[in-house]
Structure formats: C-alpha cells, structure tokens
C-alpha cells in the first residue's frame, strides 16, 4: 500500500518534469521557426551583388547596400551618443549617488523611459531634432533618437554590472590610499567591463532593429546615392524591409526574406558577440 503511494508520487513527479520539458521546448520553437522560414525563403536572394550592390528596377533587383550601410551608420551614431552618457550615468548612480529622493526619481525616470513605445521616441525625435533643432531627416536625428531610446537600457545593465562588483574591493582599495575615482577606474570598471559591454551591445542591437524611431527622423525609402554627411537622410534595413514588404507591389518574395535574413544575421551576430564576452568573463572570474 505504502509502496504504491510512493510509486504514484514518483510517476507524478516524472509527469511534471516531462510537462516542464515540453514547455521549455515550446518556448524555443518560435525563434527556430522564424529563423527557418527566413532562411528557407530568403537564402536564394543572398549574393555578393545583393549585399554590396545598389538597388535597381524600383528595388525589385540589385542590392540593398545603402540600407545595410545606413543601419551600420545609425548604430555607430547611436553608440557614440548613448554609450558615454549611459555608462557615465550608471557610474554616478552606482558609485556616487546615495539612496535618496533625487536618485529614486532618476531611477523611476529610467524605468519609465525603458517602457515607452518606440514610436513615441520617433515622434519625440521628429519634434526635437528634425524640426526644432533643424537637423532635418538625417542620420544625426535618427542616431540621437535611437540613442535616447538606448540610454535607459545601457544605464540599467551597466549599473547592475557595477553593483555586482563586491563592496569589499572598494573598501580595500580605499584603505590602501586610493581615491574614490582611482578605485572606480582601476578596480570597479575593469571588473564590471564584461557586464557593461554586454548591456551596451544588447541596447545597440535593439536600436539596430528598430523601425519606428527612424521612421520620422532618418530613414527614406530610396536614395539614388549613398549619404554624404550626417545631415543626409539614409536608407536603413528595418525601414527598407517594411517598405518592400508593404508598399511595393510585385516585390519578389525572396528579396523581402533576403533583406530580413540580412537584418536578423546583423542583430544575432551582435547578440552572439555579447554572449561570448559574458561567458568568457565568467570563465575568467575567480572570486
């Protein structure tokens, strides 16, 4: 009797584990399917000319090089504006600011900023950079808009990485006659670097794939030549994909999926890079 009971408990447990395993597999299924569909439908479009050529025949043939270049430029521009500000703010919050009303307000603002829909950022960028500051529809306006969207992500991940550095390291450093800034520069930042870098890349990756913030601020449908300065508008992969998928009749399906494939590979490779940095740092960490 007793034995039966424990046997049935064992079965319940096995059933529970099985259920959880199935759920875990199910969650990774969509991403696999998305990748599979994009690769299958898009791989035939990929060629040297597709990646490094200019578009021709109303986008229906030729390459998407201006869009790839545009996305790279926008991502770099975003990094230039958001990385120093984001890391600086994180250092302030983690190392200098106390826990008071002022910093609570800042933190609340950061959390809320991270929750704002990206199209609202686009509209804000249109109002501030494009119209008020008269940067026009340009790489500069787009990068600034994307930077504002990215900064909260960089701040929160960097702050987390800085806080993960044991307090005892700071105490020892100070007891050895280091100033607060020396402690940060020589001990805290090097220790937090992998975490900060991961956060930066994840933030930039999101910026690289966004359509809405650049919709009003930077992206155009077609350009006869590559942008010459940061005040020129640019083509960009996510926006290009949106246009050729919805606005151009008779667009070959493999060009649409080929563009999606390029975008996904661009973003995923950033993601993999971030993961590599993190796992390498974990392997090196010895405390």
């Amino acid at each position, binding site marked *: 009797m007793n034995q039966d009971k424990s046997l049935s408990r064992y079965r319940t447990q096995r059933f529970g584990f099985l259920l959880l395993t199935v759920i875990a597999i199910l969650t990774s299924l969509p991403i696999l399917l998305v990748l599979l569909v994009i690769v299958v439908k898009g791989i035939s479009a990929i060629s040297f000319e597709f990646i490094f050529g200019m578009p021709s025949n109303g986008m229906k043939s030729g390459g998407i090089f201006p869009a790839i270049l545009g996305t790279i430029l926008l991502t770099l521009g975003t990094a230039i504006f958001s990385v120093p500000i984001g890391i600086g703010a994180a250092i302030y919050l983690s190392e200098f600011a106390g826990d008071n009303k002022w910093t609570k307000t800042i933190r609340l603002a950061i959390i809320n900023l991270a929750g704002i829909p990206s199209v609202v950022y686009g509209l804000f960028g249109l109002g501030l950079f494009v119209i008020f500051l008269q940067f026009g529809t340009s790489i500069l306006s787009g990068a600034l808009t994307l930077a504002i969207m990215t900064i909260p992500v960089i701040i929160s991940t960097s702050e987390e990485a800085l806080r993960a550095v044991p307090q005892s*390291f*700071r*105490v020892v450093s*100070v*007891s050895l*006659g280091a*100033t607060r800034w020396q402690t940060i520069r020589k001990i805290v930042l090097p220790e937090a670097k992998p975490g900060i870098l991961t956060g930066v890349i994840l933030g930039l990756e999101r910026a690289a794939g966004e359509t809405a913030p650049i919709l009003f601020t930077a992206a155009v449908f077609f350009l006869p030549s590559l942008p010459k300065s940061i005040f020129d508008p640019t083509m960009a992969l996510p926006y290009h994909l949106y246009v050729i998928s919805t606005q151009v009749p008779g667009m070959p399906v493999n060009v649409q999926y080929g563009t999606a494939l390029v975008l996904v590979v661009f973003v995923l490779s950033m993601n993999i890079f971030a993961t590599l940095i993190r796992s390498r740092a974990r392997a090196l960490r010895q405390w």
Partner: protein
Amino acid sequence: MEKIIIKNLNLEYSDGTESLRGINLNIPANQISVLFGPAGGGKSTLLRVINRLNDLADVTRVEGQVVIINMDGSKTEVLDPKIDVIGLRRRIGMVFARPIVLPLTIRGNLTYGLEVAGVKNKQRLDEAVEHSLRQAALWEEVADRLDDPAVALSGGQQQRLCLARSLVLEPEIILLDEPTSGLDPISTTKVEASLQELKNKYTVILVPHSVQQAARTADYAAFFLQGELIEQGPGKNLFVNPKDQRTEDYVEGRFG
C-alpha cells in the same frame, strides 16, 4: 610612549546597531595592542575610526577625539573633517577578516597602493614587492610567480599577501581585524610570528579571533563589551589578574 590617543569617543550607526560609547584608550607605539571581546562590541568599528574607513559606512554621528602622534612629535586629528584622509590612510595599513585580494596579479596587489600614490619607478616597485613579501614571510613561496593572479594562492597565502600589501606603503600603524579567523593553525602561527617582527617597526592594533590569540599576542589589551571599553592594561596583567568581573568571566570562558 603613546601612538594614538582616543578621548571620549562616541559613535552611532544610522540603524543604531553597533556603536561606541565613551571610549578612552591610549595605544602604545611599537607594541601589539589587542582589542578583544564578544562580537558586536565595537572593536572593528574602532579600527575603522582610526583610518576613517567609516566614511564609507552609514555612520550618523562621531564625537570625541582621536589623535595620532606623528614621527616628528606633531599631532594629527583623525576626526577633523579637513585633514587629508587619503594621506592618513597611506600611513595606516589594514588587514581584514577575510583575505580580500584585489582582482589583480600578486605583484599588482602589492604595488597598488604605491601606484595610486603616483609611484612609477619600476625598481622601487620591485624592491617594495620583495621587501613586503619577506616581512609577511611569503617571499619564498611566491617569488617565482609574482605575475599569477592573486586568487590562485591558498587562503593562508592570500591573507599573508594582504598583510604584505598593507606594509608596502611603510605605514606607521597596522590595523588587523581578525586576520586569522579563516586560517588553519599553521598559517595562523606564521601570521602571528610576522606580527612579533613587525611591532619593532610599526604600531600594531589587532582584533584577535579568540581569547587565546589575545593572550598569546597582547602587549597591551583592551576588553570591549557592547560598545563600551570595560578594562584595559598591559597584556599579561589583564589576562592573569582581571579587575572587572565581566573581563574575568570572558577570559575564563564563562560567556562569549
């Protein structure tokens, strides 16, 4: 001769946990002064007053006087908000209860204090590394692997590295906060032997991890209980002939 004079020191943390009340204590120069007593008595807090490490903690109120007698006979008011705190900390080495090595090489840990002080001369750094390691009885064990990460050392070696690190700046005072609490008996013996050497050059203040260690090492001893200094005096007397009943009870092991 006194090295540190503490007069009427009161201290309170913001959460009111551990505090010090009316501490009067004179720390003699070139001796091992032992601050002992049960946990929560304020011993570590007092150590961190002397090098102003409490500046990093949540201390709401410090009153009283802590004076260090300098080599030239002049005096440094430790609690004066205007003093050069960085300079003060360079004159005071500290070793913590756990061996906290910085995430650097063995050499990097030792040269850190000098580098933040602006010393760049390679020869001087190398000399300081060897000298301090010899003082902490660690030189023979690590001489051929100074550029390995410090965490690769054993716990006992790490703690002696921390001791060496606190000596690199040639401080006048060394604060040791239960430096052997995590160490095996052999490592403990080595550290205690180093202290006997060091007191010739430095003023040593030790928070021991046991009464036995207090009795073994003390030249001068002070018994702390719940933030108050109950009794103090030359080491051997205090352990053989305690005047206060509470001191006697603690030394005899009736509580603790």
